[in-house]
């Protein structure tokens, strides 16, 4: 029962997220906070998968998420520092953060194949949402050309991650 309610809560959070992202008009400082939070959320989940996943491919995927998103975050942080922008907290970043925390909490209660499936399913949804956010909110609203350039540059990696996660989803069976 507890699990069902957690799942329902997460599903609600996932549904609410794109709406929150799409509705926002955001400035560069807010975009910076969203980008850094979005990456951090996936790094946290990836770290958990590195240790808790049972399938070797899921483990490797988790490890790669940590590496790739850490790389993106480093570049984003470097750019933000160079531009002298202070990331500004905002509802979208907050909802990403709490959604990520809920996910990690939910995942840490799971083991074995159950963990693998839940993690991978969430990765598919998460990357889809981040792509939607990039396309509908972040890229169109970015004012600074370097920031916009970085978002455009990393977008295909999110597509590749989504494809990769979908492949894993198929191989694990729903």
């Amino acid at each position: 029962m507890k699990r069902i309610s957690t799942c329902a809560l997460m599903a609600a959070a996932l549904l609410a997220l794109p709406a929150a992202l799409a509705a926002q008009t955001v400035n560069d400082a807010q975009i910076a906070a969203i980008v850094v939070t979005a990456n951090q959320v996936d790094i946290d989940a990836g770290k958990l998968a590195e240790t808790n996943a049972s399938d070797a491919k899921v483990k490797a995927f988790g490890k790669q998420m940590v590496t790739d998103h850490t790389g993106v975050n480093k570049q984003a942080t470097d750019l933000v520092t160079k531009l002298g922008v202070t990331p500004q907290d905002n509802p979208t970043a907050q909802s990403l953060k709490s959604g990520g925390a809920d996910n990690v909490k939910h995942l840490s209660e799971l083991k074995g194949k159950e963990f693998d499936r839940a993690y991978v399913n969430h990765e598919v949804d998460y990357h889809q949402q981040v792509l939607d956010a990039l396309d509908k909110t972040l890229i169109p609203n970015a004012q600074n050309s370097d920031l916009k350039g970085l978002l455009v540059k990393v977008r295909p990696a999110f597509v590749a991650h989504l494809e990769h996660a979908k492949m894993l989803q198929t191989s694990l069976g729903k």
Partner: protein
Amino acid sequence: MFRIGVVLLGGLVMVAMGAAYFVRQVGLSADRTPGRVETVIARNLVRLSIPAEQAAAVNPLKNDTDAWRRGHTLFDSHCAVCHGTDARGATPIGKHTYPPVPDLTASAIQRFSDGALYSIVRHGVSWTGMPAFQHTLSEQETWATVAFIRKAGSLTAADLTPTDTAADVSHAVRVVIDGTRFHPDDLTVSVGEPVVWLNADPFPHNIESSTGRFHSGDLAPDATWQWRPARPGTYEYVCTLHPGMKATLRVK
């Protein structure tokens, strides 16, 4: 006497049943990884199977400092499909055979004598994917290949740059990996012309040909990797980390 016969027969039956049980339980698929004990036993069996005088043979090219370069070309043509151009064995074929293709630069393999490696290349190893090359490579070529296997673990970019054509590298053809794409994604070069891949993304990528002809291993941000095609052909390659990253290298 009769009793010994019964015991022997019983023993044989048990061995047969054991083997049948193993096959039923584990199957004969190649899609698994041998355990450490199995690996150690198998390696020692291979070592013991090589006659002592062959194992003691000295590489006649040991004073030829360029032998490994010839060996490298041969390795590229005959061995790299399974062993990879870097001899580390992490190719699409190498990873999924049973037993998996070993990392030739690892100490477990480097511990074999020159003569033993020569013997393995000449005669192959049964129950593995390793074929006998005595009908493909001459004795001299085999020794050159052994010289390369010795060198493979310590190869540097400079080693891969022939001294007489060092100038080539400055105008080597460049493929930039940027935005999780290869630019250009369709490139034509001539045989022997070095191709340099540069990772301009903030996270690792790799370059792996679909047939295992070349593979770079993971390339850190800002790192480069060079490959010099030895034979003409059309090579499809991907980044195994990011599905959808595909490109073609045509060698004339």
